[in-house]
């Protein structure tokens, strides 16, 4: 070790004084038996010692902010009725010495090989069951055993990904407290933690000479490409969707590896192939990285109660076994009841000693184990043998026999006798502790950690040199049960120099190929982007109109006309409903206007209130989160995580409200700016922009109709013209062009006809026309698609309009007809685009079953 920090040997006693005061028992990762820090923690302690307490606190704060901005901490778009998932990342990692790591690495690879072989057998010849080395009822009672997968798993290469949760007992030995063989088990969280931590404490990381993760993921990419059997493989990560607690991990990983993220209904299967539904028709998928549970992978042949995976996936796997990793059915190997049988299995299958044991457990399908439990109920806690894989830390707590009263105990005994094959009894093993950064400095805190294993290109296994550690409550937990979501990074120290830093975010020319082709756009994503465009424009417009109204009451000069103008503004938003809301009264005073503003912001059932619009915006942004640039995402999440923003808006006085609206408008503008600057101009962009343009055209049309039909008197006319220019953000354009007070024909020309003004109606329409031209026609034929016909009609009607003639008319009949035409056709255009590109014809899938229903 060559860094200055590493060579420093004297650590100031203050750094560890709080840690030493709190001895909480268990194995101490940091301090050796003599009370001196273990050597492999020295470099970290030295780096920390170089920082002042304030600097350490500052970095902790910065970590919290980065965690929030990255989106790990809060599922900010989750249903507000569900409790937020908590996630914090400590400044202090868990340090593992190179020596200890090589033992763990060997042991985990052995376990992956063992589980792989076990799965091959259980889904193949079942020799282990026939010979009684593994109890058949342990396997067949597990709902994760998927009988239709027999014969598929052995041909598919079985277990690609494996993860293990480890805890160190009082005796200093690591034990596996849970196995994960279903999916990638939250590896994206570990990766995100590392990315965030490096941003804040990269210097400390470098000072410790800890191993980087990038080479592991590079190997993983190579392996998956190799597995798919094609050079430019189209790889997709199949997720249950944004509502799933693990979605962050899926999206983060997909983005890091450059893979598509897809949901079941994006896919279609034919006999031996999976296809992605895209704007350009069906595209072949070469490999699915499965992040959904095995039993929900195919509603046709597996669990008939859900529709998460694409129906027919299993028959694709039967024909092309390499199509899905992990193979469907692998969750079987994470059954907790297997623990006691692993040493024998290792002997029998691998001819090796099992290097790392499971925490002591009994499978309650075994009558002897049941008897032992009934004889010593206080020693054990009882848990399900099988548990789904979700967000790390969510393992259910055990069921404590000693906590039960006698009648309940009797009932529990009978339940165990009946369902023992699905249960395990386990003893506590304790957890080791390591320092976290607390308010008084370093504090000991027990933890468990998840380590990740995957196949490498040669067909053997590799272990990610890092992991995900979480703080646990040692009195309650036996598994990685950490609902507090306090996480730590895991640093594995390197022996000697490391290869130069490579990140998959910034591939070198050697590892990347130049790719200009469009990233494939799923029809569903196009739909979501279209609505993202509409909602962001609608949010901006709503806030502008509200601001316009409030400004007019604040202008003291002419209270009456101010009030009238403000009411006009609101009328733009409410449309015909205004009379209803105002209960037929003319708005006479400021208070009434404010009441209406409040209604517009949060109230009632109106579909266009600001509240509803923002909800819609967040909802669709969440759905396409992996398509948004980090900055765009952060802008939105900052805005939203200020729930205070909304509260302030609801409770404040008009003057403050104006400031708050300004803030909101700025946030949306910067979101739009990031989207505009950062998004590649592919079809996805076209849909986002079309959504925005349609919304803008419609808002503008409605505003002009409200303000000028019927034609107001001269005084109101000029006030309305100013208002319109303000709302359409075209005041400066007008002034620089005319240097005159606003006049109706000039304003109409600028906002209706001028195709160079990005705020004009015709600009929106011609932009939409250009987008539609560039899109692939999914059903080419001689007939013009309806969406193209509509845009031609819209553009023609506006281009032929004669604004001077319109302005001369007393009743505004021509202007009204033009606007009514536009406002009729715009929603139709929106519907036609949906129909043409988004498969709206396809309802959600559903089942039809016949029932055995005899008439005897």
């Amino acid at each position, binding site marked *: 070790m060559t860094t200055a920090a590493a060579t420093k040997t004297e650590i100031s006693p203050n750094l560890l004084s709080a840690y030493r005061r709190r001895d909480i028992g268990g194995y101490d990762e940091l301090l050796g038996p003599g009370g001196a820090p273990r050597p492999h923690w020295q470099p970290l302690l030295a780096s920390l010692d170089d920082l002042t307490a304030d600097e350490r606190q500052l970095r902790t704060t910065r970590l919290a902010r980065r965690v929030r901005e990255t989106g790990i901490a809060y599922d900010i778009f989750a249903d507000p009725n569900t409790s937020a998932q908590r996630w914090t990342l400590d400044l202090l990692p868990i340090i593992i010495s190179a020596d200890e790591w090589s033992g763990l690495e060997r042991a985990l690879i052995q376990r992956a090989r063992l589980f792989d072989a076990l799965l091959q057998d259980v889904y193949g010849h079942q020799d282990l069951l026939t010979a009684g080395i593994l109890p058949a009822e342990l396997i067949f009672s597990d709902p994760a055993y998927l009988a239709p997968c027999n014969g598929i798993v052995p041909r598919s290469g079985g277990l690609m990904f494996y993860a293990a949760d480890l805890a160190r007992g009082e005796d200093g030995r690591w034990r596996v407290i849970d196995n994960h063989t279903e999916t990638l088990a939250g590896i994206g969280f570990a990766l995100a933690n590392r990315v965030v931590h490096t941003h804040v404490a990269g210097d400390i990381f470098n000072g410790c000479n800890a191993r980087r993760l990038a080479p592991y993921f590079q190997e993983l990419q190579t392996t998956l490409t190799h597995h798919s059997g094609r050079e430019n493989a189209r790889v997709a990560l199949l997720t249950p969707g944004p509502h799933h607690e693990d979605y962050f991990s899926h999206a983060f990983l997909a983005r890091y590896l450059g893979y598509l993220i897809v949901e079941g209904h994006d896919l279609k299967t034919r006999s031996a192939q999976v296809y992605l539904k895209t704007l350009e028709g069906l595209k072949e998928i070469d490999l699915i990285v499965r992040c959904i549970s095995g039993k929900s992978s195919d509603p046709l042949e597996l669990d008939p109660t859900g529709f998460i995976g694409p129906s027919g996936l299993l028959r694709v796997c039967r024909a092309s076994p390499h199509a899905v990793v992990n193979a469907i059915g692998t969750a079987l190997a994470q059954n907790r009841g297997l623990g006691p049988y692993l040493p024998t299995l290792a002997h029998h299958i691998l001819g090796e000693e099992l290097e790392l044991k499971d925490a002591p457990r009994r499978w309650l399908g075994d009558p002897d184990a049941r008897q032992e439990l009934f004889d010593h109920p206080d020693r054990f806690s009882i848990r399900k043998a099988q548990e789904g894989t979700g967000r790390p830390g969510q393992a259910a707590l055990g069921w404590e026999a000693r906590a039960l009263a006698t009648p309940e105990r009797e009932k529990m005994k009978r339940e165990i006798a009946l369902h023992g094959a699905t249960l395990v009894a386990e003893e506590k093993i304790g957890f080791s502790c390591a320092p976290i950064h607390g308010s008084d400095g370093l504090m000991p805190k027990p933890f468990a950690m998840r380590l990740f294993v995957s196949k490498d290109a040669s067909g053997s296994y590799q272990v990610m040199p890092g992991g995900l550690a979480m703080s646990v409550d040692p009195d309650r937990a036996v598994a990685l049960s950490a609902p507090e979501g306090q996480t730590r990074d895991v640093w594995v120290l390197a022996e000697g120099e490391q290869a130069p830093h490579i990140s998959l975010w910034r591939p070198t020319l050697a590892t990347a190929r130049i790719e200009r082709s469009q990233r494939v756009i799923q029809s569903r994503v196009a739909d979501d982007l279209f609505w993202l465009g509409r909602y962001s424009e609608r949010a901006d417009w709503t806030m502008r109109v509200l601001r316009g109204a409030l400004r007019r009451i604040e202008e003291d000069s002419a209270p009456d006309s101010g009030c009238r103008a403000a009411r006009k503004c609101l009328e733009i938003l409410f449309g015909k409903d205004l009379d209803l809301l105002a209960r037929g009264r003319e708005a006479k005073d400021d208070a009434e206007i404010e009441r209406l503003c409040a209604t517009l912001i949060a109230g009632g059932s109106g579909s266009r209130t600001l509240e509803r619009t923002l909800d819609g915006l967040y909802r669709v942004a969440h759905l396409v989160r992996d398509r948004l640039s980090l900055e765009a995402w952060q802008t939105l999440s900052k805005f939203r995580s200020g729930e205070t923003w909304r509260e302030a808006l609801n409770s404040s006085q008009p003057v403050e409200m104006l400031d708050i609206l300004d803030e909101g408008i700025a946030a949306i503008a910067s979101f739009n700016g990031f989207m505009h600057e950062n998004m590649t101009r592919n079809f996805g962009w076209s849909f986002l922009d079309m959504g925005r343009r349609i919304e803008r055209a419609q808002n503008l049309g409605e505003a002009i109709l409200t303000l000028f039909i019927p034609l107001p008197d001269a005084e109101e006319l000029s006030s309305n013209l100013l208002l319109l220019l303000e709302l359409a953000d075209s005041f400066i354009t007008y002034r620089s062009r005319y240097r005159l007070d606003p006049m109706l024909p000039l304003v109409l020309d600028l906002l209706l006809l001028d195709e160079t003004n990005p705020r004009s109606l015709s600009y929106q329409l011609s932009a939409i026309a250009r987008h539609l031209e560039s899109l692939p026609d999914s059903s080419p034929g001689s007939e013009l698609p309806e969406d193209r016909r509509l845009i031609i009609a819209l553009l023609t009607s506006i281009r032929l309009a004669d604004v001077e003639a319109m302005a001369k008319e007393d009743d505004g009949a021509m202007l009204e007809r033009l606007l009514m035409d536009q406002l009729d056709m715009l929603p139709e255009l929106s519907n036609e685009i949906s129909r043409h590109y988004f498969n709206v014809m396809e309802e959600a899938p559903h089942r039809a079953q016949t029932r055995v*229903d005899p008439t005897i």
Partner: protein
Amino acid sequence: MIFEIAHKTHYRYHSTVVQSLHLMHMTPRALSGQVVRHHNLLIEPSPASRQAGVDVFGNPNLIVDIEAPHRELLILSRSTIEKHLPPSVKLSATTPWDALDFRLLRAANERDVHVLMFRCASRLTTPTLEIADYSVRSFAPSRPVLEGAMDLIMRIYNDFEFDPHATDVSTPVSQVFAMRRGVCQDFAHLALACLRARRIPARYVSGYLHTHPPVGRPKLQGADASHAWISVWAPESGWVDLDPTNGILARDEHITVAYGRDYDDVSPISGVLRGGGEHSVSVAVDVNMVADATAN
């Protein structure tokens, strides 16, 4: 005996089905005592692809893709089946049910996974404590396993009422037990839950039953039905079929299509559709005896 079976299923959809995918168990399997002389399956509209296979239990199955938009789906299965009387079984001479563990696990010979898998509860046959209590009365210690099983299905036959309106495909067995009513599929699941609560190997059988018209009346066409019953294992006899809906041992008028752990494994037609909205289905089954004895 030789039977000709016609099983017609006709779906009518409220709106157009854009695409559908169906998994079928409609082809009777060949078994000892059951010869499939002829079978064919007509599907309209004609599927874009048909993948025939054999599932892990040995049942023939078929996956069909229908890619043409359709408002109706017709599936017509025709079979000619030759049935022989099963060997007679002395129920009281079977192994005591509580000695099965020894016979299945401790004896030195190889374990038969195809028996062991049917001792375990499945999604549709998970027993509750109440169901376990109900079953215990048929299984006094040391009672021969098939004698107990026969007693159990007779109790179900007597205690439960056949009622096609009380349940549907998704009614859990616990609810069937509480209501004391259901159809043959429910009674089969209940019997399986009872037997598996005692860890007795038992499987679900889907098939047809040849029915007799009331004396002096002609047999009505389409009045037969698909049927479900169970099969229980004893070391002496192997699998023996019992029909809890009718309270009888199955003889040569029960025609087996498929067996599995429960209905999920062998559902005659299970489809996933896009589009279609509401649907109605009409099923007509005719089982006609064409020869009384085996034609040699």
